[in-house]
């Protein structure tokens, strides 16, 4: 390539970088707008949305303080429930689907194949199809607390996890497990000491996808949980809008911001894994 065209390409790339940087700043503007509005009085949020808080509209930390007990419900409880449900559900999905997937992939009997295809089938079923019956079933079985709803998540979210784990296990050479059995390991020992450590990359991908799903999920917990007692962050935020009377937009924005903070921290900490997990799970809608 000639000197001239090299220089041309370099300029082009610099210009492109600058353009993309500007777009990135624009891309983050909604979050910036959200933050400035958490410091404004309720009436100013939708009328002077893009103005920085001034002497009139500035309320300091009031929105955050008010938001903590907003709607007669402690905000820290919603955070606690959101964390409980997300962690328990993801842990249960990872443990039980990976065990089942190993069994399905290795035993490979007719029953196993039926279970596998049922799980894959469940991936294309939209939630509205089972929404009413699932919430009734969960209610009958008293699965309406943050400690029992993970069972519902394990059932409804098994499809993608089984699909990914079975695909991965089939690629692991049998010889390693064979050696473990010859050395005297039973099935449980073989699974936990030999197979489990090998599943780590898929565990991370599946774990990320399940965490993102459960944390942000609104309709399933809204219909299943006993709403007077237990609310997750999305449920709480939706509740504040749906309730009668004046909506306090300032406090709502403060809570929304507080709800995003854990997600952003999680993202910045495991960005590499998240992006890899998303690319791996792209098969699901």
């Amino acid at each position, binding site marked *: 390539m000639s000197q001239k065209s090299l220089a041309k390409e370099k300029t082009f790339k610099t210009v*492109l970088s600058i353009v993309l940087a500007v777009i*990135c700043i624009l891309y*983050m503007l*909604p979050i910036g707008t*959200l933050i400035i509005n958490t410091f404004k009085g309720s009436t100013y*949020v*939708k*009328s*002077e949305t893009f103005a920085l808080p001034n002497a009139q509209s500035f309320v300091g930390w009031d929105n955050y303080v008010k938001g903590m007990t907003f709607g007669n419900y402690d905000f820290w409880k919603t955070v606690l429930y959101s964390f409980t449900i997300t962690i328990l559900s993801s842990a249960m999905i990872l443990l*039980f689907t990976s*065990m*089942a997937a190993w*069994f399905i992939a*290795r*035993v490979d*009997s007719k029953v196993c194949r039926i279970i596998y295809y*049922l799980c894959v089938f469940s991936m*294309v*079923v*939209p*939630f509205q*199809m*089972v*929404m*009413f*019956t699932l919430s009734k*079933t969960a209610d009958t*079985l008293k699965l309406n607390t943050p400690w029992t709803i993970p*069972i519902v*998540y*394990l*059932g*409804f979210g*098994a499809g993608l996890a*089984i699909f990914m784990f079975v695909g991965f296990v089939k690629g692991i050479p*049998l010889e390693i497990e064979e050696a473990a*059995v*010859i050395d005297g390991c*039973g*099935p*449980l020992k073989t699974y936990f000491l030999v197979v489990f450590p090998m599943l780590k990359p898929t565990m991370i991908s599946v774990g990320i996808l399940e965490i993102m799903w459960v*944390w*942000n*999920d*609104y*309709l399933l917990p809204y219909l299943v949980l006993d709403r007077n007692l237990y609310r997750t*962050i*999305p449920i709480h*935020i*939706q509740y504040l*809008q749906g309730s009668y009377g004046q909506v306090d937009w300032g406090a709502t924005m403060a809570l*929304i911001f507080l*709800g995003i903070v854990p*997600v952003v921290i999680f993202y910045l900490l495991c960005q590499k894994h*998240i*992006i890899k997990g*998303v*690319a791996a799970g792209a*098969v699901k*809608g």
Partner: protein
Amino acid sequence: MKRKPYDLRKGPIRKQWWIFLLPLMAAFTIGFVWPFIQGIYLSFCTFTTTSNAKLNGVMNNKAFFNNYIKAFQDPTFVRSFWYSALFAVVSLIIINVLAFTVAYFLTKELKGSNLFRTVFFMPNLIGGIVLGYIWSMIFDGILHIYGKTLVTEPVWGFWGLVIVVAWQQIGYMMIIYIAGLQAVPNDMLEAAKIDGASGWQTLWRVTIPNVMPSITICTFLSLTNGFKLFDQNLALTNGLPKPFINGVPVGQTEMIALNIYNTFYVGNTSARGTAQAKAVLFFILVAGLGLIQLSATRRKEVQQ
């Protein structure tokens, strides 16, 4: 000593199926299999709750499909279907064109590529309800200048939703496109350059044919996501405005999923049979799209 061939199928693992399979099977039955079967059954019933369901006349065909007939006759359902279809197609085009463009430039070894990727993907982690309220603040803030809100005109609600979903999903699709673009063989691109192909020619004749699998995945993902959209729809406009048309309130920005939800839980509980029938039709639509995608990706794989 002769070693016996190792066979897990006949080994002790089979006797321990209850440790490995049972927990998942129990939860899967509660969380999917039983509700699914019951859902199909209830779509042929008249009911307000699961315990008082009565099967519509089995002998009389017309009564048997009563819920389905009512679903097709419901103007709000028909409208929400076409609305969702239009939304899905429009958002599909916008999301994929922009995501591909961004991914294309980000694979050009630019300064700051990683930072840009981080930023573009970020909105994907925020849930639909929260996103809806952030953007409703922004749209209302802009429209406030003209003394209007987002739910004054249906067309604003439509484009508002397109913007929200594009903002959320461009980063996601971009990740898939980047993975596809990085897999394009470098020697092919270099060969095109040596043969004197222009940038456009290389893009259309070499790059795009090579990333076809990614394009198929992203197209179907955004299409089904468009049809299944619920949270953002609920938070942004909740189907409003809702004028009476021929005596029936019809949500002008109501999508299928929200329509099914409203038929179930808002207002008259006697319409729950119709709601379940709508849900089954919705399932057939989404599953059908999934099957088409599967066969499309399979065909592409054979060609390669």
